């Protein structure tokens, strides 16, 4: 066996199943979807051929040709043309095509053959082609193109062995571009390719009667209807958010019960003292108050994954294009913005599919205002407090929650409109064009793998950043020790109490004291920390029965007063606090991704400062107006 490892690149149009094939070959769990542009950067993995040879495989972002304009397409083009400084030209290209739309996909195939690399054609989605009545002849196709053709169904694991066998040594010779003749102009070359594709498809991929209406077309007649389409989109969005809150209630109760059981177990199994307090209140209490939101996050990613995988997301982008154009964006910005409701990071990365650089910049700028899952813990703590009712799926709470999402979204659109105008028109106008893939059954295994990934990332975050912040906060509010046994006096005497007092002037105009200010400050690294910080700074005691930590915290907050006896958490101050959390950019990883995607820390810092100042001003205005009327 040779020591060198061959590199195979998976190249093809967007949404042909390259990532599905990559996962099937490597056993990986890269995110897959049923819309263009899910893969926005190259990914690599390894697998063994049936002959025991190790092969490195690259999953390239989809591209329609070798001259794509969007950043993701340029990554693929650079590597395929040998212009990437880090990635040498792959030894073999596996060109993945959608067998049900060969006429479109073969254009890239011919361009790749012209590059002169050894190549194999992976004829994916043969099941869909067969269902659509297309009569494929892989042997004839191979003869026409001069390369090996392997029919496969990557999502069903069919044809993978044959594909792996075709990647064995010696690698195939590069095919010759028989459709080209010397001295042809670019225009003539293009026409020659079109003619060759038509001739090839006429014999190797014959289509049935064009009038035949496929199932996807029948579904689209309803889902893309000018009236019912919109109605279904709105209902889908409402059901998505309602399901998240309704069905995650029970598992959240289990997590809370588990946390209480653990706190009681640790508390009774060791002597009282600082260590006991650190473990039960600082660590289990702090981390547990964030982990309890895991079911909602899992539910959100599951539902978004379901929409992506089924093919509905592209339809939503089509429907939304008219609306988005009013704020200077296109339907393509809808997918990144919707993803940002789950987490701004994948949302910002998904903007790579947007052709216009200016539109992309604007989408990146406003994406963090789509209320992400990390804000949920804060909303769930504050909304019941605002409505003076216990936490539960009441209609009033659902309406307020919807309003919070709507405020962030509408502000994002308004700012996008202003910013888009300020940046001016594109040098070359970009018009809307999107492929609407056939509806697929969701790929459950990949959806569940994706959920597991995101859930693990959340748990890891809770186990690292949030754990560290919980310990620091506990230490700050425990030391230096006071001689008094009164928890309130101890807190005032502690470092946290002193910090709270010094920063209070900054938060007083918002209707909050230094303690809430300190909790806000700690949540600038990750906003979900706010709940555990509030629990710690308000010294919430462990409940004797199965009462919830948040309920105890809410009771504590309801009792909180200013030194003159006025209640601290009034309607005005709670609205002010909610507004601050809607608008402030409190997520360090998001800023890091913005810097990477825009290629400049200036943009990330500017966005952070703008959003923080905007949040502070909006909260001050809301509180001052609210207190005037109340």
């Amino acid at each position, binding site marked *: 066996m040779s020591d060198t490892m061959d590199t195979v690149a998976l190249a093809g149009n967007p949404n042909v199943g390259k990532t599905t094939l990559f996962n099937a070959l490597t056993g990986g769990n890269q995110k897959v979807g049923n819309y263009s542009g899910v893969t926005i950067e190259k990914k690599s993995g390894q697998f063994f051929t049936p002959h025991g040879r190790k092969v490195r495989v690259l999953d390239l972002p989809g591209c*329609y*040709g070798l*001259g*794509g*304009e969007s950043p993701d397409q340029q990554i693929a083009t650079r590597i395929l043309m040998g212009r990437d400084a880090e990635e040498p030209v792959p030894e073999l290209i596996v060109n993945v095509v*959608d067998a*049900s*739309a*060969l*006429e*479109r996909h073969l*254009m890239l195939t011919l361009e790749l053959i012209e590059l002169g690399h050894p190549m194999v054609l992976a004829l994916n989605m043969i099941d869909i082609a067969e269902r*659509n009545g*297309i009569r494929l002849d892989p042997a004839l196709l191979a003869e026409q193109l001069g390369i090996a053709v392997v029919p496969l169904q990557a999502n069903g694991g069919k044809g993978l062995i044959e594909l792996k066998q075709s990647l064995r040594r010696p690698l195939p010779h590069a095919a010759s571009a028989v459709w080209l003749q010397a001295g042809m102009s670019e225009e003539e070359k*293009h*026409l020659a390719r*079109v*003619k060759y*594709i*038509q001739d090839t498809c006429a014999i190797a991929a014959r*289509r049935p009667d*064009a009038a035949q209406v496929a199932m*996807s*077309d029948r579904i*689209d007649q309803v889902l*893309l209807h*000018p009236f019912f389409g919109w109605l279904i989109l709105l209902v889908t969005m409402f059901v998505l958010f309602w399901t998240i809150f309704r069905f995650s209630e029970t598992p959240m109760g289990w997590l809370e019960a588990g946390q209480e059981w653990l706190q009681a177990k640790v508390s009774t199994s060791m002597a009282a003292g600082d260590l006991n307090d650190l473990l039960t209140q600082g660590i289990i209490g702090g981390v547990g108050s964030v982990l309890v939101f895991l079911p909602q996050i899992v539910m959100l990613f599951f539902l978004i994954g379901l929409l992506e995988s089924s093919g509905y997301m592209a339809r939503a982008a*089509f429907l939304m*294009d*008219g609306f988005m154009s009013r704020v200077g964006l296109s*339907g393509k910005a809808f997918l990144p913005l919707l993803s940002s409701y789950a987490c701004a990071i994948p949302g910002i990365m998904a903007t790579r599919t947007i052709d216009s650089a200016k539109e992309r910049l604007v989408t990146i700028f406003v994406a963090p205002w789509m209320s992400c899952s990390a804000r949920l813990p804060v909303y769930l703590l504050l909304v019941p407090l605002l409505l003076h009712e216990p936490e539960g799926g009441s209609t009033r709470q659902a309406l307020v929650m919807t309003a919070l999402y709507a405020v962030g979204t509408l502000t994002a659109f308004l700012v996008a409109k202003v910013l888009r105008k300020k940046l001016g028109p594109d040098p*070359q*106008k970009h*018009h*809307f*064009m*999107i*492929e*609407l*893939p*056939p509806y697929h059954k969701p790929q459950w295994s990949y959806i569940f793998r994706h959920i597991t990934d995101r859930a693990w990332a959340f748990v890891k975050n809770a186990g690292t950043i949030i754990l560290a912040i919980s310990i620091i906060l506990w230490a700050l509010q425990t030391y230096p020790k006071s001689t008094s046994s009164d928890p309130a006096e101890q807190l005032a005497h502690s470092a946290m109490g002193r910090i709270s007092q010094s920063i209070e002037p900054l938060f007083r105009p918002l209707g909050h004291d230094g303690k809430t200010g300190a909790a806000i400050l700690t949540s600038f690294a990750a906003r979900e920390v706010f709940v555990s910080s509030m629990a710690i700074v308000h010294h919430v005691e462990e409940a004797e029965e199965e009462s919830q930590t948040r309920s105890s915290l809410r009771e504590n907050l309801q009792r909180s007063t200013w030194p003159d006896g006025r209640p601290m958490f009034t309607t005005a101050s709670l609205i002010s606090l909610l507004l601050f959390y809607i608008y402030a950019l409190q997520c360090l990883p998001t800023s890091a991704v913005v810097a990477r995607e825009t290629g400049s820390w200036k943009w990330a810092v500017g966005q952070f400062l703008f959003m923080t100042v905007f949040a502070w001003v909006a909260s001050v205005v809301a509180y001052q107006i609210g207190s005037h009327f109340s």
Partner: protein
Amino acid sequence: MPTPQTIAQTLQQDSLISLEQAKVGCEFHIRFLNGPACERLRQMGFCESMRVKKITDGRNMLCTVCGTKMALSRELAHQIIGQATA
């Protein structure tokens, strides 16, 4: 005196319309592309001599090309020139 070939050519040119102008439900035979987005349209499958079926009209129209459903703006459809065949 124009030859029959010239007359046929003129008649054919007269019958050329853009995809934007084509009626919903018709089969459209692309003759050429004319505009700044030609390259992008070709990459997406709207090549010369391809057949397109127009499904809906509007600000963004729906059509099928090579068995794939595409949504494209009126401005792009305006750059696709051909003949409505049915």
